[in-house]
């Protein structure tokens, strides 16, 4: 018999929690920006900022997609970087073979969709998502190595592609795509029955099932979204550098998971937002960029990233515990 007394203040506290998370993240972004600017002046140079937001956009797009998986309570996907890699390679091969750009983009993304759907079906059938995506990631990476012979694939596009280098209003195209995807996913999560279902499954999958929600469909769709968004990252990379190789996205899984977690999406599912994930991605990208400029060793960078993620998760859990007990 666990009875909790309700008080009038509770609803307000709950409402403000989401806002508090957003504010905390925005403050985090600003703090990193100021500290970095003061200690590494070149951090604020135009070139570096463009490079940073591009990196943030790639991490962010994949993380925004992965947020759907996390929201359904299926933790994270560990096949994100592998999916990005295979999509990039297929895109580069298609371009190299002289396909028109639209086909070289759409076909690899369709492959990413199938990859996501297969993993989603396995997870919906009851397989653990970590094991499923870990296995899928290894298999996909293997295939990528086989079809490329572990060599770099040249796209051989004569002129730089606008999809990689265009800067409408001075802002890189990747950032535009990132922003648009964040807005779309925010609307989907808030305004559609699919988005609602995703969150309800993550809150309590048993209650979701007993309420007649379509769990399988929503889980499969979430994996498809995560996979296609990872594929978009692969395509964008090819458009930018005009080639693809299997080592293009090394370490991407960790950055993407870090962005989702720093964004405060509950790892057990049910609560989170793609806007916050996006902010999380910006924090991770800025942090990484700063540490590169400051010439930190690879190991040191990993340690610091690890502590930031751990600290953020602990902080968010603490806030949640405070407001739900």
């Amino acid at each position, binding site marked *: 018999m666990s009875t909790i007394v309700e008080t009038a203040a509770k609803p307000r506290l709950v409402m403000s929690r989401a806002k508090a998370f957003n504010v905390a993240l925005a403050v985090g972004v600003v703090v990193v920006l100021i500290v970095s600017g003061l200690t590494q002046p070149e951090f604020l140079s135009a070139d570096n900022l463009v490079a940073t937001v591009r990196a943030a956009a790639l991490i962010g797009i994949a993380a925004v997609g992965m947020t759907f998986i996390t929201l359904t309570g299926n933790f994270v996907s560990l096949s994100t970087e592998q999916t990005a890699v295979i999509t990039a390679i297929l895109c580069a091969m298609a371009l190299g073979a002289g396909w028109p750009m639209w086909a070289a983009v759409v076909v690899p993304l369709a492959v990413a969709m199938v990859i996501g759907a297969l993993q989603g079906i396995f997870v919906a059938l009851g397989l653990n998502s970590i094991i499923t995506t870990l296995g899928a990631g290894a298999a996909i990476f293997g295939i990528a190595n086989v079809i490329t012979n572990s060599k770099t694939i040249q796209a051989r596009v004569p002129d730089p592609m606008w999809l990689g280098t265009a800067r409408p209003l001075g802002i890189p195209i990747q950032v535009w795509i990132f922003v648009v995807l964040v807005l779309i996913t925010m609307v989907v999560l808030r305004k*559609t029955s699919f988005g609602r279902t995703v969150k309800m499954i993550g809150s309590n999958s048993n209650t979701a099932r007993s309420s007649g929600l379509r769990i399988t469909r929503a889980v499969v769709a979430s994996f498809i979204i995560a996979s296609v968004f990872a594929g978009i990252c692969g395509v964008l990379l090819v458009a930018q550098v005009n080639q693809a190789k299997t080592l293009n996205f090394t370490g991407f899984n960790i950055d993407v998971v870090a962005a989702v977690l720093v964004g405060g999406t509950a790892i057990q599912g049910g609560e989170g937002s793609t806007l916050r994930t996006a902010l999380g991605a910006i924090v991770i990208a800025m942090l990484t960029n700063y540490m590169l400029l400051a010439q930190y060793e690879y190991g040191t960078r990993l340690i610091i990233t690890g502590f930031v993620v751990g600290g953020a998760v602990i902080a968010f859990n603490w806030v949640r515990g405070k407001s739900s007990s």
Partner: protein
Amino acid sequence: MTETGVSLLDMKNISKSYGHVQALQDVSFNLRSGEVMALLGENGAGKSTLVKLLSGLITPDSGSITLNGEPRTLGTPSAARAAGIAVVQQEFSLVPTLTIAENLFLGSGDVRGLWTGKRLANLARPLLDTVGLEDLDPRRFVSSLSVGELQLVEIARLMGRNAEIFILDEPTAALSDVEIVRVMQVVKRLTAMGRSVIYVTHRLGEVFQIADRATIFRNGRSLDPVPVSELTIDTLVERLLGRHLGEMYPPRAASLGAPRLEIKDLSTPGLSAPISLTARQGEIVGLAGQMGSGASSVLRSVMGISFTSSGTVHLDGTDITKANRQKAISMGVGYCSDDRKFDGIFQLQSVMKNLSSAAINRFSTAGWLSNSRERSLAGQVASKFAFDESRLPSNAGNLSGGNQQKVAVGKWLAISPKVLLVEEPTRGVDVGARAEIYRNLRTLADEGLTIIFASSDMAEVKGLSDTVMTFYRGHLIRVLPAGEITDQQMMLDVTHASVSSTPTTDAVNLSDEV
């Protein structure tokens, strides 16, 4: 059985409240050494709160606990353990992937040095012998044991910790007859060795077989302990039920409509024999039975949750035997399980999202949600189920047990149901919220809803239903209009077979004439 053992545990004037809910009020409890004290009471009467107090999980707001003549506080589980109080868990605390012997000594610190299989087995042997498991190889893995054996191994483990007071919380609820006999024998052996047992049960027959005295809890208060020899099943039932039902339950239906849900020869796991049932419009049918009686199996089978092996289910003449859960919901059947935290509510979501969760298609167009339609739907549900609308934005998990239950049941109104299936409609709910839930359900029935509920609370079944069906171990025992069945008859139906089918009936002979 030592009738005149010395007083071992004495609890006086214990009170404990959770928020507004007074779980225990001025309760006294006494236990002598070497006796079996039955602890009886309906759901929510305060038995489990007392058990939690004794196991150190919660502390009383006031009152005193004396153990062996010394005042004690049992603030933590380890303090309770050190005081010699052992709770035989309903959910067992054994590690399935270790052997019996390893489990017996896990964490005890008694066995130093290497844990070789042989050495542990030798140490485990005497402990297993005392609980009647002479034939069990201590090197077997715990995962291979039956539920009854698990319970006995658990008792052996606690014996190894020199526990003085054993608390058995509904030990036989999930056991077969043969295993019940073994557990009872072990309980007797424990008392013969001078240990004391607090025996919590719903099965009244067991009280007469095993207990020396009985303490009855009613609505958070305790009655004075009575020697079992002075009790009959009649007086026991009377003491258990002794409360005013008048204000608690709304009047029954004046008239019933056309047949709505017709179940014919239904077979499903949990039922030993097929059953048939017809529920009319505006009727509340109460299925009375203890855990494992098959009462809730019927509901699960209708809802398409568990497999229907044979028989048919018709809703307003339409065959829904094969309908899965989503189909059943779309046909207007709602189902609420007996565990709201498991699959009844979304604790971390707002009450509004909870109330609308079963009816998303009713406030969305082509997949797009309409906030205003959702609000008005949730508002309608809230007003129909007497739920304070100002609470719609709060998280369901922050509500009291009673309000959570209102959410878990009330959310089905959003689908405009024809039939509502509810298991244990008021489990873990305080008296005030209970009365409210009963009133709400009756109002809905008066508006034409058909309600079928399963419950182990006899007073609830009798008070709320138009028609009562009693279940025991997979068998439908009796169907009667609620006005024609007596409390005692029901109590006998759902418990008496445990007496007649158990060979160790030495204390009482209940006639089988039913």
